[in-house]
């Protein structure tokens, strides 16, 4: 399933639309995270528009691939990708975090069809994904289980217990993906609690590890394809991403981890202009083209 240039261009355009929807939904919500979701826009686009065997009109399809999101706080980007994939109307993104919404601040399995599990408290997604993969293998099922994780949640013990379990049981139908953006709420991961070498650690736990540029669709898809060819081991994809990707002024800035547009640091954009400026950057492809909105 090698990507053709046309497909790559299509995915890039889709990811840009999804980023815009993300910013719009965060502006409407008035709270939530910005940097992490922007950084994972390309990965989610790759999954929902190329990798996953799924049916947005039949979210409970029996042998669908399972996509478990462990770091629930970046769910707004999952919602935006799901809406564009056809799970629900794009307009519903405006209800993010509001009373009565299906788009809870952190995702809930029983609120929105297509959300496979509840997450928010960090470190518990990989175990759930491993449980699904284990059960599926018992029954000879062929679908694959993916678990998207943050780097910061690798501070938790639970996730390493799960990594050990998946390695022991050689869950080759399980693929983990770490959003390696090097930031967490209080700062840079290697200052807060050094994680490196993530590769060596996972390899020591009997995983196959692949590093990729998390904004390169070809690399992401190739890594997922490679994982399917690895037997006797689960695979970990370390996706190196840029927090805030798509909006140059906030890229790499950990202060945007937990703030929505309108509530972030003011040294680049005034608070009341933050959402508008971000959308402008996205609509003009970081200022490279004129926007129809201008």
């Amino acid at each position: 399933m090698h990507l053709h240039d046309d497909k790559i261009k299509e995915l890039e355009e889709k990811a840009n639309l999804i980023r815009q929807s993300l910013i719009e939904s965060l502006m409407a919500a008035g709270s939530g995270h910005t940097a992490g979701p922007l950084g994972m826009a390309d990965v989610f686009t790759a999954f929902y528009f190329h990798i996953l065997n799924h049916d947005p009109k039949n979210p409970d399809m029996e042998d669908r691939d399972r996509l478990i999101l462990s770091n629930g706080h970046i769910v707004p980007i999952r919602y935006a990708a799901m809406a564009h994939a056809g799970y629900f109307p794009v307009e519903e993104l405006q209800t993010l975090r509001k009373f009565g919404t299906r788009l809870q601040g952190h995702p809930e399995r029983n609120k929105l069809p297509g959300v496979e599990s509840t997450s928010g408290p960090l470190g518990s997604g990989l175990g759930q994904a491993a449980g699904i993969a284990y059960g599926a293998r018992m029954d000879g099922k062929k679908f694959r289980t993916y678990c998207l994780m943050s780097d910061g949640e690798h501070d938790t013990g639970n996730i390493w217990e799960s990594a050990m379990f998946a390695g022991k049981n050689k869950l080759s139908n399980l693929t983990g993906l770490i959003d390696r953006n090097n930031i967490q709420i209080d700062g840079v991961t290697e200052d807060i609690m050094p994680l490196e070498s993530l590769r060596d650690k996972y390899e020591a736990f009997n995983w196959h590890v692949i590093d990729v540029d998390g904004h390169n669709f070809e690399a992401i898809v190739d890594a997922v394809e490679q994982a399917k060819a690895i037997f006797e081991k689960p695979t970990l994809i370390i996706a190196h991403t840029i927090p805030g990707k798509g909006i140059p002024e906030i890229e790499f800035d950990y202060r945007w981890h937990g703030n929505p547009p309108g509530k972030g640091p003011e040294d680049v954009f005034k608070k009341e202009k933050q959402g508008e400026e971000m959308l402008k950057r996205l609509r003009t492809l970081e200022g490279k083209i004129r926007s129809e909105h201008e």
Partner: protein
Amino acid sequence: MINPKAKLVENLFDKDRMEFLPTRDGFGKGLVEAGEKDERIVVLCADLSESTRSQWFKDKFPERYIQLGVAEQNMATVASGLANYGKIPFISSYAAFSPGRNNEQIRTTICINNVPVKIAGAHAGISVGPDGATHQALEDAGLMRMLPNMTVLVPCDAVEAKKATLAAAQLPGPVYIRFGREKSAIVTTEDTPFEVGKAQVFRQGKDATIISAGMLVYNALLAAEELSKEGIEATVINSPSLKPFDVETITESAKKTGAVVSVEEHQIVGGLGSAVAETLAQNHPVPQEFIGVHDRFGESGEPDELLEAFGMGVGSIKEAVKKVMKRKK
């Protein structure tokens, strides 16, 4: 007098002719039977297969037994995933560790997800004995009772424990079942009614109601029998279903007797006594005395010795009945 409808064992007060088994044995037997009936059942263990009796399931169904090592948090999350996929997982450990250590994983990945994971907390209560405070879970039932979607069962003996295990396997949502380590009196029979959400009147009396769950039900019966010799007739209710709680049976009994003593091997905050007080406060307030652990940790000792020292022995229950009767208006 003993309620004939409860179909309790004969010779209830002849200790030489009573049978004593740990409730965890009932769990072990129930697991095997549940596994025979339903192929979806899988059993997870965190390095305590023999003492939780999950070993019996492993011997019969090794392909459906999953060893996770000393990792209770992971056990909860893996079970959540298995249940999410379509299995019915039982997770077993000591109550001090599960739900003690993995409370958040149970809350988020089992209860909010609302998946049918069954949590077996073994070695609960102070009667674990010599192991001391760290291993004497006295908060577990309260922790689990507070969680939406969770059913909480505290069987009184090994026979009821097996029934509770089989019932848990069939419920569509999460269940916590509490088991003890020590051998305890078998008071019920196969014919004793058991239903999730129902309490049973084991003994009928007009002067006070003793309501209990777990192995202390037998102490409650012994206390009632001794009180009878002093002219006090107590009702004894076995309430294995802490949640859902049988509001009707407890309220009816409180109306008849006008005084209640709750008896549990648990902190009095959050457990059976709290459930009784919440129920009566809303439906029919009467004086209540609380037998249980009063805001302290346990310590090493022999089980019977500890139950006496912590005020959960037969004598303490009798005193509580007399005290609560004096408080009647």
